[in-house]
């Protein structure tokens, strides 16, 4: 109290307190972001070997992955970085495969056999197999197709001459020459996303969690856990390409 009986500080919150509280409040708001930033260490390629896993028992052929991929990567019409095939095995063992527009709109038509004649039917999503010994990388005459240190096969658009040799060399038909730009194009495993800790566009869009990319070097990753606990296969293993795209519940009819 001062002599005149007045409090030297103004009533309520003083300026000094206001600024103090402002600092404290701002700090409190920023802490979670700071913690998250600290948790997400900068992406180090050498810590990763990317692989992809597809659970064929989960895929229901909705085509959301195909649409997401098209939108995310501006895939030109008539070509696909990923697509979904439908296998229909008749009771007589006859196999029919279809993939209308790569299942861009799912499968609007019914299975080719009448339902009573269908033995089994299932969907198989396809994408770049991320081969450990990739024939596309081997044949590229200018080194434009290359394997990144984290195991993802990529195309350097600044180097590609558009000869199409990689398109011929890929046993899985995942490559194409971009009709507008002339360079070779294919699934990059959404490299721009996975290196920022995000899922691939197809994985994020999949309503049943049938497909995802993961770090094979990390023993705690989902892909490693699935590979350790399930029986799986890869496509065309006899060609020695060593694909890193694994299929749980792969049927022998799938090539």
């Amino acid at each position, binding site marked *: 109290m001062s002599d005149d009986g007045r409090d030297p500080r103004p009533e309520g919150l003083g300026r000094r307190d206001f600024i103090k509280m402002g600092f404290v409040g701002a700090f409190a708001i920023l802490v979670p972001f700071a913690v998250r930033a600290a948790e997400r260490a900068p992406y180090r390629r050498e810590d990763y070997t990317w692989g992809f896993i597809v659970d064929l028992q989960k895929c229901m052929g909705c085509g959301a992955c195909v649409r997401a991929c098209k939108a995310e990567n501006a895939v030109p*019409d*008539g*070509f*696909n970085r990923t*697509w979904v*095939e439908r296998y229909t095995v008749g009771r007589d063992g006859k*196999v*029919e*495969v*279809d*993939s209308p*527009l*790569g299942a861009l709109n799912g499968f609007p038509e019914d299975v080719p056999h009448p339902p009573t004649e269908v033995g089994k039917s299932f969907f198989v999503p*396809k994408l770049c197999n991320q081969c450990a010994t990739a*024939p596309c*990388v*081997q*044949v*590229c*005459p*200018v*080194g434009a197709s290359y394997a990144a240190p984290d195991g993802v096969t990529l195309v350097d658009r600044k*180097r*590609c*001459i*558009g*000869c*199409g*040799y990689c*398109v*011929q*060399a*890929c*046993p*899985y*038909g*995942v*490559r*194409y*020459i*971009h009709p507008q*730009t*002339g*360079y*070779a194009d294919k699934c990059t495993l959404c490299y721009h996303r996975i290196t920022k800790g995000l899922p691939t566009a197809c994985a994020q869009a999949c309503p049943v969690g049938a497909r995802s990319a993961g770090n094979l070097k990390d023993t705690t990753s989902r892909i490693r856990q699935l590979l350790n606990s399930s029986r799986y296969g890869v496509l065309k293993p006899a*060609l*020695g390409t060593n694909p890193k795209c694994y299929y749980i519940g792969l049927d022998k009819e799938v*090539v």
Partner: protein
Amino acid sequence: MHGEAISELMGFVFPNEQHVTWTVMIVLYPYITGLVAGAFIVSSLYHLFGQESLKPVARFALVSSFAFLLFATMPLLLHLGLPTRAFNIMITPSSSSAMAGFGIVYLTYMAIVVVEVWFSMREEIVGRALATTGALGFLFKALALFDLRVDERTRALDHKVVRFLAGLGIPVACFLHGYVGFLFGSIKANPWWSTPMMFIIFLLSAIVSGIAVLILLFYVISWVRRVEVDAPCVQTMANFLWGFMIIDVALELMQILSIAYQQRAEWEALQILIEDKLFWSHVVIQLLIGSLVPFLLLGLNSLVKLRQRTRNVLIFSSSVLLLIQVLAMRWNVVIGGQLMSKSFRGYTSYMPGLWDHEGLIVAVVVFTVPFLLLRFFDFMVPLFPSDSAIGKGRPS
């Protein structure tokens, strides 16, 4: 617009395979390279292996090889998605790629052919340099590298160099074309291509097409110049043509036979490819019309005593048919291999457009230019020796 409307599909084809990536330009590339290698080998038969009856055509064969070689890369350039980067294949080659060796092989062969052409034409170039004045005279003098001496000593040296380069050129020519076959044969993803026999089949079909095109040109030029065709010369070429075509076709058949007999998983799909998609181009044109008929005609020519007129008909028509056979073979390999999907469950179709930049008109133009160039070369410096009938019969 979606791609499904463009190609006629059969069975299940992977979405990206509905469009054929390697077009008629890539059919033309091994075809022209084959003519290069084949024509060179004919000239070497004279220069190196003493086939004296081939003298009238030896130098012409060498220059033909050069003319085709100049345009061998043209279809590739037209095909590239990014043609402005074409030279990257030579500047920044990737050591693991079979295709990256192209620059080295092509340039080595080009160097050999250019030098051999120069030495084999030197006397004629000097002759033109002495006979002409003004700018053209200067051009010929420059072409002769301003050394206008011609005597026994220089002739001997020219001859020696040509012989040496003819010897060196044979393995390089074989390598150039065997290499083109290897580009296809090394693609394990494609069972129609993936065979170690591919490079040897390409090489032999190259020799066949090279001899056939020389026979054809030799006849046409003889008729244009109104001279009797040099019978021993065409007969020798026809004999070689018969021999090489027998080995070539036998190997082509052996290749299919071995795939069929092995009955691997992909044979079922390949069988449909051959019997359905390639029925006309492979079974009818390549095997029956292109191989069986010339085999019989050339056999008749080689084994039976005939009048020269009849021989001319047999040899000429066989050469035409064999040129078609080799073109069909290139088509069946390059296009055929892409018609079958790597799903092994379906087939696409392909027909080049007429006016596309990789279409038929452009293909015809690219294939015609080397012949026009050859005519121009002959206008500049006579390509046939002046002591032969065809050389004397020059209209100019």
